[in-house]
């Protein structure tokens, strides 16, 4: 039986730091970068106050932070780090090392625009740029979700059918620095939920020597990648199983996505993270006027839940996918192109258009969301989309 949860007011960063405290990983290696810095700063306080047993390693760059985390994880430790933007970009080489060594590292990422020009505010260019690195990616709308997702991520990553690293994303400043009310589980419940980490192959097991990352050329490299791809496919089921178990503990239910007033919705916005909250307010407003609008907020982007999203949108007539990062493909943002491709074999295909929005922290308010819904309305009247890709709210 779960103990009572505590209602607290915390920023997204503080909430994640508390999740880390409750997980009590063996090793955390990190390097400061705005807007992530807080997470590790709070966490280092827990270390110095003796609230966790973690070995806390300060390094001289994110390249080293991820390298040290990889080393610790390969040695058999439960190892974590956290970063944002340029830090994630600098880790890129090591992201592939972590996933190909099948190390269940959990990394909170606080989304921030990539340079240049230099910018410290939110967009998703950092994590969208690492979609091909073999990491599971989970996005959070609020501090509550960031907290819940980090705890679940440990179980997902370490599941024997998965053994892949996980990024848990939240929106820089909007979520990371905004104070919200949330519920946190009792320490012992989290401890029990994540359990003790028992790696099957690890370097410090001297009785069974193993090697990570040896040379594999034309002979075996392909098989390594196929196994990673299979693990990613397995993750879908595991994510749902872990969510179910977590719901029993916390009362908070998670899936691969969240549908908000979606069942009979004709016009739907698909958007990640904090902007989903803004969209919910607009959905409620338009619904009160009798308009059939809804929201689909993907939670998991890697693995991409293609069938599930297509199924969830099967009743929709017009869909606007909002991406918070450019891809420069000229064909729209990442979520848009993947979702559009997912509809290729669907019997019913809604009108579908893309908005690139909120770059470098540009505020996206209910006004912009209203505009998107009204564009969809016009498209429906017209019978086709006016424009495939639109940059929302751009200076003339």
């Amino acid at each position, binding site marked *: 039986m779960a103990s009572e949860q505590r209602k607290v007011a915390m920023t997204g960063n503080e909430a994640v730091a508390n999740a880390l405290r409750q997980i009590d990983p063996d090793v955390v290696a990190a*390097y*400061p*970068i*705005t807007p992530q*810095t807080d997470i590790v*700063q709070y966490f*280092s*306080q827990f270390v*110095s106050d003796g609230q966790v047993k973690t070995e806390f390693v*300060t390094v*001289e*760059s994110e390249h080293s932070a991820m390298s040290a985390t990889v080393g610790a994880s390969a040695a058999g430790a439960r190892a974590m780090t956290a970063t944002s933007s*340029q830090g994630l970009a600098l880790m890129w080489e090591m992201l592939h090392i972590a996933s190909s060594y099948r190390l269940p590292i959990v990394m909170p990422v606080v989304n921030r625009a990539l*340079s*240049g*020009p*230099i910018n410290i505010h939110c967009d998703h260019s950092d994590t969208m740029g690492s979609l091909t690195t073999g990491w599971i990616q989970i996005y959070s709308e609020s501090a509550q979700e960031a907290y819940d997702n980090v705890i679940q991520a440990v179980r997902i990553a370490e599941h024997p059918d998965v053994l892949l690293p996980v990024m848990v994303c939240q929106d820089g400043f909007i979520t990371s620095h905004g104070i919200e009310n949330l519920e946190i589980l009792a320490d012992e419940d989290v401890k029990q939920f994540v359990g003790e980490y028992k790696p099957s192959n690890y370097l410090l097991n001297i009785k069974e020597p193993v090697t990570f990352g040896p040379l594999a050329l034309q002979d075996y490299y392909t098989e390594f990648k196929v196994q990673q791809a299979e693990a990613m496919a397995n993750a879908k089921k595991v994510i749902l199983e872990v969510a179910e178990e977590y719901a029993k503990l916390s009362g908070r239910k998670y899936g691969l996505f969240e549908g908000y007033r979606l069942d009979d919705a004709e016009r739907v916005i698909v958007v990640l993270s904090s902007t989903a909250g803004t969209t919910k307010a607009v959905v409620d407003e338009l619904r009160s006027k009798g308009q059939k609008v809804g929201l689909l907020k993907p939670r998991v982007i890697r693995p991409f839940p293609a069938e599930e999203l297509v199924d969830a949108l099967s009743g929709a007539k017009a869909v606007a996918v909002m991406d918070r990062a450019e891809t420069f493909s000229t064909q729209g943002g990442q979520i848009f192109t993947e979702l559009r491709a997912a509809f290729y074999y669907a019997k019913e295909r809604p009108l579908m258009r893309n908005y690139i929005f909120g770059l470098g922290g540009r505020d996206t308010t209910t006004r912009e969301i209203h505009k998107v819904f009204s564009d969809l309305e016009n498209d429906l009247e017209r019978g086709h989309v006016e424009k495939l890709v639109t940059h929302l709210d751009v200076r003339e």
Partner: protein
Amino acid sequence: MALSFEKYLRTQKMPHIWCPGCGHGIVTQAIIRAIDELGLNTEKIAIVSGIGCSSRAPGYLNFDTLHTTHGRAIAFATGIKMARPELKVIVITGDGDAAAIGGNHLIHAARRNIGLTVVCFDNNIYGMTSGQYSPLTPVGSFASTAPYGMLERPFDLCELVVGAGGTFAARSTTYHARHLVNVIKEALTHNGFSFVDALSQCPTYYGRRNKLRTPLDMMNWFRDHAVPVSTWEKMPPEEREGKFPIGVIKKVDAPEFSEVYSGLIEKVRERGDE
């Protein structure tokens, strides 16, 4: 005549981001004065920086400026110098930028003796990200990541540059503002890689935690612990304890890399003509 700073500044970018009492303005001013006093052609200067409070300086400087990524300023500047050897390329960096995340570039630029002037705004802390220790934080000092005092040994940046084969290394402080200008002038006229360790105060994240309550306390600390290099050389080791030398610590002549490279191109071309 008093120096008119307006010409050298993007005044529309003011107010700047630096905290009250920060030393970075003094170092920026010293760079401007050095350029002015040497009468350098501002059209032939490129200023490059990484990321940090220090690296914000080029944003306020009315030159051709390049604001790059954390730690990589010297690498970007190397490209500029190789493409346009006639330019005076100045790198503005912080102690974290130059010696932690970007330490590799510093030693290789010194080793190559490429004609860059690197001015490190050395406040011995990561200012921009709120006071984590850097590789310049003294043993025992407090930082947000060193709540019990710094354990790791710091770099001596001038020694590092010299050890890597650097041909010019100097140090000064924001207290020694006039001296700092002179040192930067010498660096700017050196043919080859020149490095200036410009000690600067971070009252917000360093002073406050380390019993140096005001910016003035921090500058007085520079006054009380700096020793001219000529005196330093005569001091026995026990007297050096806790002090540091200021002035030009190393200056030797060696072929500058972009010139060596042009020489090679010419030689190969000549051979091609044979």
